[in-house]
């Protein structure tokens, strides 16, 4: 039974890692955003304010966990976990070091694309069960957006799968060559934009547009359940950045040991920073612009990318 105990220990430690990553993400976002706006960001708690996010989390833990009277109580309470669990699960196939991923499976890339998609259900359920029109609208918008952007995202990853001839992220990283980057640049752009949209991050934060929908599908949540939504957002950012760094940017580039871990970490941090930068720079899209971008720009771009790769492959 050691396998099961090991799995349990691994799952629990994985949860801790995501919580830490989310704390770090919140702090990093506030710092980067502050610098962009010529502010300092959090400075008080800990060196350069590192423990600010931790203090905020403790505050959130102590807050009252409100369930609205009109809500469908059971579903309302379950929804944050339906959003969080798939995103946490998607971290399992990401190669954090050279030649090592927590779960090295032959369908890793498909797994990474498929499992976070389940969190759409959580968003819809959260929107519905709140019994609040703003929340329901936010849920519908979120689902429409995530479904639309899944297509270009999957297609863009396909280009790398064709180049590498495998669906295992660890293998992709092992086979990565420098000229893949210019060849798959178009796909990388599509992947990046559609991932930001998939995460409901600004400028694609239409489902939670604070000026129109209060806070969208999690308008009625408070305390720890709200914190879980936030954690899944930052967990998603970390997962996407790591995945993008591993697949499109070559990850650790065959360098083993601590140096390789550091290399992929730096690449992921770079992507996280760009996501935050984009979010604090561009104004929010309108719903129709959002769908136009997905169907008329990104999907054709991803298809062109696949054709490019298809043309190049026989010349190798």
């Amino acid at each position: 039974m050691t396998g099961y105990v090991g799995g349990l220990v691994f799952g629990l430690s994985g949860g801790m890692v995501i919580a830490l990553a989310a704390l770090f993400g919140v702090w990093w976002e506030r710092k980067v955003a502050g610098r962009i706006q010529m502010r300092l960001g959090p400075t008080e708690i800990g060196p350069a304010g590192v423990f600010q996010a931790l203090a905020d989390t403790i505050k959130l833990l102590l807050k009252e966990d409100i369930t609205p009277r009109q809500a469908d109580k059971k579903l309302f309470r379950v929804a944050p976990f339906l959003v969080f669990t798939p995103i946490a699960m998607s971290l399992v196939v990401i190669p954090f070091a050279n030649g090592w991923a927590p779960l090295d499976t032959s369908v890793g890339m498909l797994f990474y694309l498929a499992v976070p998609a389940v969190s759409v259900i959580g968003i819809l359920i959260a929107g519905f069960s709140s019994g609040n029109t703003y929340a329901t609208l936010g849920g519908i918008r979120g689902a429409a957006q995530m479904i639309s952007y899944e297509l270009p995202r999957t297609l863009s990853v396909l280009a790398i799968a064709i180049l590498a001839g495998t669906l295992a992220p660890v293998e992709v990283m092992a086979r990565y060559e420098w000229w893949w980057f210019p060849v798959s640049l178009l796909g990388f752009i599509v992947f990046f934009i559609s991932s930001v949209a998939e995460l409901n991050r600004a400028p694609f934060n239409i489902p939670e547009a604070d000026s129109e929908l209060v806070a969208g599908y999690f308008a009625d949540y408070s305390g720890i359940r709200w914190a879980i939504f936030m954690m899944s957002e930052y967990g998603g950012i970390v997962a996407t950045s790591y995945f993008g760094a591993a697949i499109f940017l070559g990850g650790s580039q065959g360098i083993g040991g601590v140096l390789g871990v550091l290399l992929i970490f730096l690449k992921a941090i770079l992507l996280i920073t760009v996501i935050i930068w984009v979010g604090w720079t561009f104004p929010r899209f309108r719903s129709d612009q959002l769908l136009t971008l997905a169907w008329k720009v990104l999907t054709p771009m991803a298809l062109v990318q696949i054709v490019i790769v298809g043309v190049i492959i026989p010349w190798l």
Partner: protein
Amino acid sequence: MSFDGPFMIQLALGVVALLTALAVVAVREITRMAVALGVFLLSVAGLFLFYGASFLAAAEVFVYVGGVLVLMLFAIMLVQRTDAGRAALESRHDIGSASVAIGLFVMLTVALRGVSNRFQGSPAGSSVPELADVLMGSRLVQYEMAGLLLLVALVAVIVIAGGDEQ
């Protein structure tokens, strides 16, 4: 039949699949039905994974839970604009339907007994390259037909659902 780890996993997934399937059929509230259907499909994907069909499992999660189920919730919302999540699903439970279902179960179990007794080895996985060879090789025609079917379905959906805006 030994009660080891794999057997227990199979048993647990099977029980979850059966219970959630019952919930899909009997629950009276649409959002709960959707959640039950989601868990059901996930447990079926888990069973696929257990039987070594990992690609099929991932595809099932991708297409069904991420696609069809969301589409279903969408359709419900479009149809019942007010109070969408609360609409009661009616069903007419009667002896006739139950006996048809039970009769079918008995019949199919007896019919498949030979097959299931013959194939009892431990599950072994199939690899992605092998699957690709099959899809792009001996089953190429079916593969292309499936693509065509999807295209036709796409056009049909647009015509049926979007065609009557005056």
